[in-house]
């Protein structure tokens, strides 16, 4: 395949993915928007005033970046894991496997689909947050790149989960028992400076902490972690997951007998 043909193949997978989650927007776009709006109402409006300021911001302003990032993470992951496993379950992953499209384009197509949904939900949640918070973005470039890279990272993680999944239970176990705890304990609702030293150090082992703080730095200009460290950690995880995903696809693990 020449470059133009590869681009066509990539674009086809991406459009197919976007149409897939677009067709079922009531299941894919709307629920995270409603859930996040409830977070804003309960934690921001009702409980927030009792908590007071955090790192110099109202509690509502403090949690907005984390909640947007949480929506980006969960939706990037959910899109790829459900789409990839769905393709395996129905067998239509074979459409790509029999074609000459290289594995790296299959990977790029699925991940881009996850990023498209993650970013679409991120934008929708950001718009909802404007009803609750006077949002000002301190550094747009940092905000956008951290959101994009985080979305890529979790889309990759979703693909790996999809490769190994052998039942619909397997695609919900990781989000429920790994992703949600990591996100909730990743500084979405609090600053790790509030924690005792031991738990601060434990929190530093959580990769989500670096993403939430990088995003919060982009929006509010404050973070528990240096922005350079956040970028390094995110890029390191992306490199690891890209390598592992390519290994799985090239070996045909979970998709070829």
């Amino acid at each position, binding site marked *: 395949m020449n470059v133009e043909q590869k681009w*066509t193949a990539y674009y*086809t997978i991406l459009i197919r993915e976007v149409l897939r989650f677009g067709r079922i927007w009531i299941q894919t776009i709307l629920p995270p928007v409603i859930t996040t709006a409830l977070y804003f109402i309960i934690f921001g409006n009702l409980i927030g005033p009792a908590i007071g300021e955090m790192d110099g911001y109202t509690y509502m302003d403090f949690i907005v970046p984390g909640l947007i990032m949480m929506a980006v993470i969960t939706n990037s992951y959910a899109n790829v894991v459900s789409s990839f496993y769905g393709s395996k379950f129905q067998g*239509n992953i074979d*459409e790509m496997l029999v074609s000459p499209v290289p594995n790296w384009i299959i990977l790029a197509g699925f991940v881009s689909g996850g990023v498209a949904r993650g970013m679409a939900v991120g934008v929708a949640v950001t718009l909802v947050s404007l009803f609750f918070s006077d949002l000002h973005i301190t550094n747009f470039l940092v905000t956008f790149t951290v959101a994009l890279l985080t979305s890529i990272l979790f889309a990759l993680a979703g693909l790996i989960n999809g490769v190994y999944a052998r039942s619909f239970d397997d695609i919900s176990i990781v989000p429920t028992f790994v992703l949600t705890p990591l996100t909730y304990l990743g500084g979405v609702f609090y600053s790790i400076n509030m924690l005792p030293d031991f738990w601060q150090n434990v929190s530093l082992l959580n990769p989500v902490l670096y993403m939430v703080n990088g995003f919060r730095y982009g929006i509010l200009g404050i973070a528990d972690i240096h922005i350079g460290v956040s970028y390094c950690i995110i890029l390191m995880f992306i490199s690891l997951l890209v390598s592992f995903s390519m290994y799985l696809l090239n070996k*045909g693990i979970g998709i070829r*007998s």
Partner: protein
Amino acid sequence: MTAALDIKDLRKTYANGFEALKGISLSVQQGDFYALLGANGAGKSTTIGIVSSLVNKTSGTIHIFGYDLDTQREQAKAQIGLVPQEFNFNVFEPVGEIIVNQGGYYGMPREVALERAEILLKQLGLWEKRKSQARDLSGGMKRRLMIARALVHQPRLLILDEPTAGVDIEIRRSMWDFLSQLNRAGTTIILTTHYLEEAESLCRNIGIIDQGQLIENTSMKALLGRLDTEHYVFDLERAWEQNELLPNEHCDFSLRDPTTLDVSFHKKEFTLNQVFSYLNQNKIEISSMRNRTNRLEQLFIDLVEANKA
């Protein structure tokens, strides 16, 4: 001329230790209509899976129109269209989108894929359903959708794994016509089927796989020529009367019911013309006749039984 498909010493052992293929070698020439037959679990689908890159081989080499599937993977895969045994499309996608997307995976620009999709959907009688979700199609339509999808990129080698399973006779006949036309236009076709009548009427060459080995690889004519006994069923104009027919040392006659006569004879000793002459002499009038069993079916059973022995 380079073979359309050249397989050498293909072996496959699954992770559970099951040896599905035990060193298969076969060559399918360009323009051929080739039948790959075998009982369930014989290794047909594994062979097809490996050729179409859905199954990893243990060892062996595969060349598709001269392209090595290991070292020239993209070029080799671009030559193949696959119609698998099971329905394997996204049932929630519209029919037209399934075809166009498949073209996209082969690098076809969207406008070209749309044109090809229109041609194929019209040829296969699915044009009116192009906007319907695939799950709303009937079984026969789903089979035809898979054929259209496999042909969108105009493959030189079309592999069909039981393409007419579960479809009614009318659709099966129309699919046979379509595949015959496609073959006459130059597409090499490999067909697996359990309908041996289908293989006999469509295919020029045949391979029989049994227990992971290719036990036969020859022309259909040569294979059928090996059948030395013919079995026919004659429907009689009037009811048979006992002892009406004189015994014949070259031909066995037995009565199934008063108006149905089974006839068996060795081809080397007797001919169908002689059977008719003989019945005519005995004033037995025939209203219709048919083969008692499919000829290929008889050979297939004989070969598989011999391999087991």
